[in-house]
């Protein structure tokens, strides 16, 4: 039992920090908010060359074969520097292709992902934004040796920049809940697909994607027809845990900015940092980030061990949603009026963290999942001991 980072973990994090500090200024994040593509391909390529995109993908595809935890540490730094690259969406999809795809699917995508030549994304949400199987209405109808997809996906991250997209569908007409769910690896340029960017407060690139009679071959299916729900759930869990690393990374930086600002800003003839009420908010901010980070690390660690981790993932996301939001909001407050000004950089973090609290499961949804694990299975619960099996979305 040792919840601290090892020397190697620390080194990795530091090297990611040094690189991103130098290569990604807040101005870049600002610039990409107005960019059509939404990310600088050159920086993306550089990050791939450094091995970070392939961090948790196998060596035979050009990756580094390292743990999800390592990737999480890099993504914490990506969050810290609000790096405008499509790492989260690409990883969420690529890790699923690696875990559950066929050899051909892996060959077709992973080497390009590792080299920085392919951006990926995934599409789950539809009109009903809840991350549960019931929300999936999009239809995949068998047709000869392929499938025809019809439906509308919402909040698809970086769809505009992605070559391929994992699409969650219902392949059995009239099926309920987790039954009848299938997953497809779809070319985003397939005929019948159209997309429109949403206007979001983070000014990120999320799209509404409409599928109209989109034909995909059977070879595009990941997992078995109609029984892909466990694959989808694992994808969402990995994506959620990785998103938490970005959230805690960004929130910690945001807290540090507030602390620094308060030390230099004078009011009533003294630094505002010397007021106890300000000190106590800052103390809370750091404790909130620490708590979210510890929960996230435990979830990642469990996934790396191959242990069930859905409860830990939901613990982390529910906590990060509330507390990281509290951190960035408190930081705005400590900055007084200036933090509200467009020309000041603080809002770049504020708006992103806020957006991330809304992605991949609300606080209520994740707590409901923890509650199911706690209350709907027999047996006494005990703190410090894990509790599985019934914790499903």
């Amino acid at each position, binding site marked *: 039992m040792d919840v601290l980072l090892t020397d190697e973990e620390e080194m990795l994090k530091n090297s990611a920090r040094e690189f991103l500090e130098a290569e990604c200024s807040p101005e870049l994040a600002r610039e990409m908010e107005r960019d059509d593509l939404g990310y600088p391909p050159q920086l993306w390529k550089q990050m791939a060359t450094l091995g970070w995109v392939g961090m948790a993908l196998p060596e035979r595809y050009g990756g580094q074969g390292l743990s999800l935890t390592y990737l999480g540490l890099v993504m914490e730094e990506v969050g810290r520097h609000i790096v405008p690259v499509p790492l989260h969406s690409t990883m969420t999809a690529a890790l699923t292709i690696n875990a559950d795809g066929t050899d051909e699917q892996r060959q077709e995508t992973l080497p390009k992902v590792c080299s920085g030549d392919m951006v990926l994304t995934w599409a789950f949400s539809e009109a009903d934004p809840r991350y549960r199987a019931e929300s999936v209405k999009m239809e995949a109808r068998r047709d000869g040796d392929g499938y025809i997809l019809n439906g509308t996906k919402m909040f698809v991250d970086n769809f505009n920049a992605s070559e391929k997209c994992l699409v969650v569908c219902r392949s059995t007409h009239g099926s309920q809940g987790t039954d009848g769910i299938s997953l497809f690896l779809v070319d985003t340029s397939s005929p019948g697909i159209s997309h429109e960017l949403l206007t979001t407060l983070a000014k990120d690139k999320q799209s509404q994607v409409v599928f109209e009679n989109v034909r995909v071959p059977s070879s595009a299916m990941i997992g078995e027809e109609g029984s892909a729900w466990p694959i989808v759930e694992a994808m969402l869990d990995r994506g959620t845990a990785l998103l938490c690393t970005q959230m805690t990374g960004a929130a910690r930086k945001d807290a540090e900015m507030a602390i620094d600002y308060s030390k230099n800003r004078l009011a009533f003839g003294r630094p505002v940092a010397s007021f106890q009420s300000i000190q106590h908010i800052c103390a809370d901010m750091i404790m909130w980030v620490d708590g979210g980070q510890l929960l996230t690390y435990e979830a990642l660690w469990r996934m790396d061990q191959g242990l069930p981790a859905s409860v830990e993932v939901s613990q982390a996301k529910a906590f990060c949603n509330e507390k990281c939001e509290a951190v960035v909001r408190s930081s705005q407050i400590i900055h007084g009026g200036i933090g509200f000004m467009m020309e000041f950089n603080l809002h770049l973090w504020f708006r992103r963290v806020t957006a991330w609290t809304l992605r991949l499961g609300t606080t209520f949804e994740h*707590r409901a999942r923890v509650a199911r694990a706690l209350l709907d299975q027999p047996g006494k619960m005990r703190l410090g001991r894990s509790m599985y099996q019934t914790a499903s979305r």
Partner: protein
Amino acid sequence: MDFAFTPEQEQLRQEVRDFIAENVTDSVRAEVEDAMDEGHGEEYMKLRAKIAERGWIGISFPKEYGGQDGSRIDQYIVEEELARVGVNVGLSGSGGPAILAAGTEEQKQYFIPRLIRGEVTFALGFTEPQAGADLAGLQTRAVRDGDDYIINGQKMYTSSAHYATHIYMMARTDPDAPKHKGISIFLFPMDTPGVTVRPLWTIQNDPPAPMGTTYGMGRTNETFFEDVRVPASSMLGEENMGWYVGAMGLNLDRVGASRYLISVRRDEDIVNWVKENEFDGHSPSEDPEVRDRIAEMWIEAQVCRLMTLRSMSIVEHGGNFTYEGSAEKVWAPEHGVRTTEGISQILGPYAQLLNGSIGAVEDGVFAHNLMGSFQSGINHGSVQVMRDQVARRGLGMPRG
């Protein structure tokens, strides 16, 4: 990072559990419960001796003083199991860590093995009527007289002073120095002439709280010192350095399994209670708002657990926490209050029923908690003062 206990540690936990199943009989439990405010009875002391024989008390203390030179994580495991049956084996709040760090060889050889065997227990004499959170404002005086010191003054809330063998107390030895720089610590027997103890009863005394309640203390004391003569050798650390010795000891005492458990045990209790019980056919576990609240509390409890393990990990690496111990001491007590109040809204009017009442839930433990859970956020460093420490020591923010 590694969030698993080793197979040896899992085995240790199992051994402790087996030991508890075998040795912590109902009569021992009853005695522990009854004696909580009156020191320890015969059965308890026998049990404690058996635990000490296994080497489970003071595991991380050095071998030469009766410990095991063992890991802080092992100690955490044993402490976590035994705290649940009311036996404190981590020696937190015992004065042990400060004695090890600052004591003379003689003091270490005398006190540490006796603390481990349970032959010595200290009352802690810090607080005074005019010095609580601002402890350095204390006024009790110790004046040198030949080879002795003469102590005069009054301490407040000296818990366990009515059955402790010794007192670990702070007194002012240099009234002219700045307030933090004129304090010394003394360790001496409670039966030293001139020491008188008077009870102070708390709101949890009638009826006495069930075991494991937060805070659960029915009685504390005020202790008076009238021309109490103690030898100079009873001073811990150097003269006028007592503030620093005491603060370091308090800091070390702030972390560990029992401190975190005291604030999270109700989470476990309420989950298990709502699963197994209902009010006239309706279980609160079916209500969406209850489920949300319980999950929220459970998640917070995990944060308390992980913050404790973080402090343990730092100690295990031979490090010193700067703000992490204080963070733990903010999170656990405040969580304890939130969860206690949340539970009371789940149980509604049943949450007010004390032990002995018709309809009391779980022997009134939730009701007692409502009266006392906030107290762990005041003692041993109030949450306000702890936040000051996080901000100043952890974040480098300036004093006001």
